[in-house]
């Protein structure tokens, strides 16, 4: 393996981990506020669909982005209505959203475009384009630093940088602001927040809006940047891997980045090794690498490598004055 190979695998890992990281942070806002969110997958898928449909009909990728975000926020609030306002089961509500969105996007996509649920491919002018960082071309020839800067760090889509920037931002918001403190408190001890005169329901709804915005970014990235159209079930379980990453990260922003990058690297390696034969190992069972994120999460949940302790009030609707 040369440096070039490593740079290429890592750059691909960065691209692959972006939707994971956005969705994982989305889940973080929601779960730290005490709302279990199995519906990340569905919200991403809905956003991917809305973004592709609006971008292709209006020929504006920006409108697509806005549509993606609005759609994801809408489904996030459906989850909120069911599980906060109506105090329904948060897991059931998440499953409902996932199922509903898989069906709706397929039915509507097929009815509108008649291509088996796929949206028409977006021309380059209505897609997000990779961003070249300053001097990337100039220093490409510099040994080591050149390829690392020009090929690994430069030349990604806006979303890749947004996702990375969202990590310190989230860490700051949750750790250093009044909003973040209240959000975390609502997930740990809602009664205390209520006593302080802050509406628990409103805080949780706000957390779900944050969650929706991030899911919207993740979905839009998948259908208008990473690929050029929406395909049915294109999220392919990424929402669940993000959920796994969230547990892996023990519900912390920097941990989320580490976990998502790790899963992204595994994914990139699996793609690279597809069909390849290695010395000693022989034909690589790619499935073994693909299974790793799930396996690692189960092992972590079992408490064999550290303990993942979820927010205390997670999954429980808040009822005033209940003892």
């Amino acid at each position, binding site marked *: 393996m040369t440096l070039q190979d490593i740079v290429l695998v890592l750059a691909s890992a960065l691209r692959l981990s972006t939707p994971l990281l956005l969705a994982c942070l989305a889940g973080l806002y929601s779960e730290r506020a005490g709302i*279990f969110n*199995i519906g990340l997958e569905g919200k991403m898928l809905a956003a991917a669909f809305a973004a592709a449909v609006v971008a292709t009909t209006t020929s504006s990728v920006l409108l697509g982005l806005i549509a993606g975000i609005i759609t994801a926020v809408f489904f996030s609030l*459906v989850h909120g*209505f*069911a*599980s906060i306002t*109506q*105090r*329904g*089961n948060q*897991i*059931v*509500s998440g*499953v*409902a*959203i*996932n*199922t*509903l*969105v*898989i*069906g*709706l996007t*397929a*039915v*509507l996509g*097929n*009815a*509108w475009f008649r291509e088996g*649920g796929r949206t028409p491919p977006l021309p380059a002018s209505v897609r997000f384009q990779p961003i070249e960082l300053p001097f990337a071309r100039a220093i490409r020839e510099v040994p080591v630093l050149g390829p690392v800067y020009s090929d690994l760090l430069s030349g990604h889509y806006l979303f890749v940088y947004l996702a990375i920037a969202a990590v310190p931002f989230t860490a700051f918001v949750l750790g250093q602001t009044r909003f973040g403190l209240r959000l975390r408190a609502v997930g740990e001890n809602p009664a205390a927040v209520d006593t302080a005169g802050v509406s628990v329901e409103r805080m949780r709804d706000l957390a779900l809006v944050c969650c929706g915005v991030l899911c919207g970014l993740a979905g839009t990235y998948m259908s208008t940047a990473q690929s050029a159209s929406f395909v*049915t079930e294109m999220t392919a*379980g990424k929402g*669940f891997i993000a*959920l*796994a990453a969230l*547990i892996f990260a023990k519900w912390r922003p920097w941990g989320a980045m580490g976990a998502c990058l790790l899963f992204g690297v595994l994914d990139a390696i699996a793609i690279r090794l597809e069909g390849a034969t290695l010395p000693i190992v022989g034909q690589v*069972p790619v*499935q*073994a690498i*693909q*299974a790793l994120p*799930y*396996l690692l*999460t*189960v092992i972590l*949940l*079992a*408490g064999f490598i550290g303990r993942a302790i*979820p927010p205390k009030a997670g999954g429980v609707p808040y009822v005033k004055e209940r003892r």
Partner: protein
Amino acid sequence: MSSAPKELPHWVDVVLVPAASVATAFVAAGLVVLAIGENPLEALQILLRGALGSGEGVGFTLYYATNFIFTGLAVAVAFHAGLFNIGGEGQAYLGGLGAALIALAFDSSLPAIILLPLAVIASAAFGALWAFVPAWLQAKRDSHIVITTIMFNFLAATLMVYLLAGPLKPLGSMAPDTRGFTAAAQLPTIKGVLVLFGATIPSSPLNLTFFLALLAAAFVWLLIWRSRLGYEIRAFGHNPAAAAYAGISATRITIITLLISGALAGLMASNEILGVHHRLSLGFVSGYGFVGIAVALMGRSHPVGVVLASLLFGVLYQGGAELAFEKPAITRDMIVVIQGLVILFAGALERQFRAPLTALFGRRPSRAETQAATS
């Protein structure tokens, strides 16, 4: 002193609440049909005709319902213990592996009368086995069952891709399937059985597993409401703390309940693998495990409710196929929409239907009843 809260009469609770939520789901689905420019009433007509209008249609409807009875019961049993087994999909997948391994190993050496029961048992055993690790982790290490079963669904999927792309695939074959089973490992169809008695019905994949599903429903009823274990399961589901005081072991109940749940989900594979396809193929579960969630919620975790809800979903699956054929704009994905809406309205938003119905039908216990209850 405020008066006692209104109580919902039992029949409203078991009939009207689910009926109202399912009706809402269908109205919402009708709006989707309207939105894509088709007539929902016409669609409903085609759907019903496709599912119930011919003997063949009824056969297919019951065949689909068989799958849903199993996966629905699997979810329902776990619900009684307050556990959400979302892993029916993976457990059914592994159930298929169990049935297929037995069939492949013995279909040229054992007679059907021994082989078939063995294969059916293997499907249940493998389903239970796949539920065991999440069950053990939930009981012993307090790992959330929902997350672990989701992970196990994905693990099952990758395991099967590995097995069917390599070890289980016959040499020289391109398709991700095992070889076909011989006749000894094929469950008789209902048509085949009736022919022995001189009766003929139109052909359909409906096979003996249908009766096994009904038996399973009866078994679940006996288990939950007529056995000591069922009592413990319900007590644990209602109030784990009180159950612990009553000497009910949380570990034992959690593991046993989830093993039963996994076994029921695994049995679904018997219908598909031994009854219809006669080979193990990639992705044969195709979402039937997830339908079980909608079925259990709609059937309110009661075996009778589960069977009725399964029949409804059977109608949707068979009629939906017919509908997609006649109206290409309404693809079979419409069923998934309805499934999602049912989970939303009958599951997550159930309270919303309960409140107005309580206002309408609820009655306060009379003073005498309240006093009798408190004294």
